[in-house]
C-alpha cells in the first residue's frame, strides 16, 4: 500500500519548519537593520521624534560630503591611500613569510606562529599607547607615515596568516618542474608561482585593505588628530549629532566592503583562518 512521505525523517534538502523560517526572517532583518537608518538619515532634511520617516528629504548631506570645503573627500583619499600602502607593504613583506610558514616545518615554528598571531588578538590600544612616545620623538606622530607604519601591526600578521594558508595548499613541485625545464627564478615566480597563489593573494589583499580601512584607535593615537581618516570623521559627526552627514559618510565608508564582497564572496566560506582575522574590521 502506498504511504505518504512523512515529516519525521530527516533530510537536509526538505523545507524548513515554521519557527525556523521565523528565526531566519528575524536573522535577516537583524543583519541589515542598523544600516537602514543610516541610509535614510543621509537623505533627510528634518527627521525629528516621533516621525517614523523624515518629514523632509534633501540631498544637502551628500552635497556637503562631496563639496570641496568639507573634510570628507580628503579623508576618503587619506584612508584609501593608507590602506592601499599598508596592503602593498603587507604583501611584499608578508608573502615570503607566509610561504615559509605554509610550506616548511622548522624548529620554533610554533613560537613564530604565536608571534604572528598575537598582534591579531591583542587590542591595538595596548600597543599604540606604548609606541606613542617613541613615535613622537622620531617625528612620526601626527604624520601619514607614522599612521601607515602603525597600521602594519594588524595588517601584516593578517596577510602572513592568509598567505600561510594559501601556501599550505600549494605544491612546490611545480616550481621544481619549471626550473628543470629551464626557467629562471624570476620566470618561475611570474609564470608558475604567482598564477597559482593569485586567487588567495587577491582575497587576502582585499581583506587586508579592509583591516586598515576600519582602524580607529591606532589612527587616533598616532595620527594625533592631524591625520584625518574617514572613521575619525564619522565618529566626530556622530558624536556631534549631525546625523544626516553621519549617514552619508557611513554609506561611503561601507562601500569598499560591499564591492569586495561582490568580487570575492565565493571564497569566504571555508576560509576559516581568513575569517578569524576578520574581527579586526
Amino acid at each position, binding site marked *: 500500500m502506498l504511504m505518504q512521505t512523512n515529516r519525521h525523517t530527516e533530510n537536509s534538502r*526538505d523545507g524548513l519548519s515554521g519557527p525556523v523560517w521565523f528565526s531566519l526572517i528575524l536573522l535577516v532583518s537583524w543583519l541589515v537593520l542598523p544600516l537602514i537608518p543610516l541610509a535614510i538619515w543621509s537623505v533627510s532634511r528634518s527627521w525629528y521624534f516621533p516621525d517614523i520617516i523624515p518629514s523632509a528629504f534633501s540631498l544637502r548631506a551628500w552635497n556637503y560630503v562631496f563639496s570641496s570645503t568639507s573634510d570628507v573627500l580628503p579623508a576618503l583619499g587619506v584612508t584609501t591611500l593608507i590602506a592601499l600602502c599598508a596592503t602593498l607593504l603587507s604583501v611584499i613583506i608578508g608573502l615570503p613569510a607566509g610561504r615559509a610558514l605554509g610550506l616548511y616545518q622548522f624548529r620554533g615554528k610554533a613560537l613564530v606562529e604565536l608571534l604572528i598571531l598575537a598582534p591579531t588578538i591583542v587590542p591595538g590600544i595596548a600597543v599604540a599607547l606604548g609606541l606613542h612616545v617613541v613615535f613622537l620623538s622620531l617625528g612620526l606622530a601626527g604624520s601619514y607615515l607614522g599612521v601607515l607604519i602603525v597600521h602594519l601591526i594588524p595588517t601584516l600578521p593578517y596577510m602572513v596568516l592568509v598567505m600561510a594558508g594559501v601556501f599550505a595548499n600549494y605544491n612546490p613541485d611545480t616550481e621544481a618542474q619549471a626550473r628543470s625545464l629551464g626557467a629562471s627564478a624570476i620566470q618561475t615566480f611570474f609564470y608558475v608561482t604567482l598564477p597559482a597563489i593569485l586567487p588567495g593573494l587577491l582575497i587576502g589583499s582585499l581583506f587586508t585593505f579592509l583591516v586598515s580601512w576600519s582602524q580607529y584607535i591606532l589612527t587616533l593615537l598616532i595620527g594625533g588628530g592631524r591625520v584625518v581618516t574617514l572613521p575619525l570623521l564619522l565618529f566626530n559627526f556622530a558624536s556631534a549629532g549631525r546625523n544626516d552627514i553621519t549617514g552619508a559618510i557611513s554609506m561611503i565608508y561601507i562601500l569598499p566592503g560591499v564591492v569586495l564582497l561582490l568580487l570575492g564572496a565565493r571564497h569566504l566560506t571555508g576560509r576559516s583562518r581568513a575569517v578569524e582575522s576578520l574581527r579586526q574590521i
Partner: protein
Amino acid sequence: MTDVSLEKLTKAYPGQTRPAVNDVSMHIDGGSLTALLGPSACGKSTILKMIAGLLPPTSGDIRFARQSVLQLPPNRRDAVMVFQNHLLFPYMTVGENIGFGLKMRHEPKKDIDRAVGRMLELVQLEDMGTRKPNQLSGGQQQRVALARALILRPKILLLDEPFSNLDANLRLEMQQLLNSLHQELGTTMLFVTHDKEEAVGLSNKIALILNGTLRQYASATVLYGQPKDEDVARFFGARNFVPGKCGPGYFDCALGRFTLPESVSSTGRLLTFRPENIVVGGDNILENSFHATLASKQFLGSQTVLGLQKGDIFFEALLSPQIAEPLQEGSTVSVHLPQRSLWILG
C-alpha cells in the same frame, strides 16, 4: 529476526530526469544476510538511508515485520547503520563509543559496562576499551563501529560499503568477522557493496541495482547461471552473447543448433554462455559442438583466456593453463557447450 519489505520505494530529487531510486520492491527474510549490489551512484546507498530513516522516500513503503516504519524517526526504528567511514566519535574512548546507544537509552552504567565488555570480546578487541579511536588501525576502527551497532541488538543492521576503505587482506578478515557475527547473533543484515566478489562470498541473496532500479534479486548461483537480462549478465561477467532464434527445446544461431536444458524457457533471442564453462579441444561430442578458429591466447596466471572465432561471431573461453597449453593460435579447435551452461535472454 525481523523481516524487511520495500514496496514500490521511490526517491526522486527535484531537477533530476530519472529518480535516484525507482520503484524498488523486495522482501528480505528475517535473519538473512543480503547484499545490495551495484556500481557507484546507482541508488543503493539511498535505499539504505531510506530504510534507516535518514532520507524520506518520495513514495512507497518500508515495513519491518509487516509494520510500516515511515512515520518513525531514525532513532526509533531500531535500524542501525554502519558507514564506510567508521565515524567513531573522536573525543570518546572506544568503550564510550560502543556504549553510546545504550547511554542514549539511559541504561544504568553497570549494565552498559558489562555489555561493552562482552562486545569487545566478540570483536576481539578486549584490551582496547580505554583507547581513543585515532589510536586504532583501520580494521580495528571498523570492528568498533560494528560493535557499536550490534550491542543494541537492532532489528536490522545496515552497512554502507563498510569494508571498501580497507585493503584486500583486511577486507577478507572483516567479511569473515561479519559472517561469524551474523551466525552468532542472527540479526537481519543488509549491506551495500560495489564489489561482486564480496557480495557473492558474504550474502544469502543479492539484489542487483542498476540506475536506481532493482534488476534481479536472487542467490548468487542464480545470478550467475540464470541472469534475467543482458545488463545483469554483463554485470556478473558474462561475455558471450549470440543472437538467434528459439525453437521447442533448441536454439538456432550462427554457431549451430544447440539443445537447451529443460529448465530453460524456449523464448528469447540471445544465447549466452560463460567463458569458464566452455570445453575446448575435447573429444568430439556430437551435441552442442562446433569448430572454431583459435584467434588469440593469453596467459593470465591462474587461467588462460582464449579468443575464439567462427564466422562473424567472436567469443571468449577461460581454461586452465595446462589444458590451454597445447592449443595453437590460428588453428581450428573443437568447441563444446555443455547443455547446462546455456542460457537464453529475452
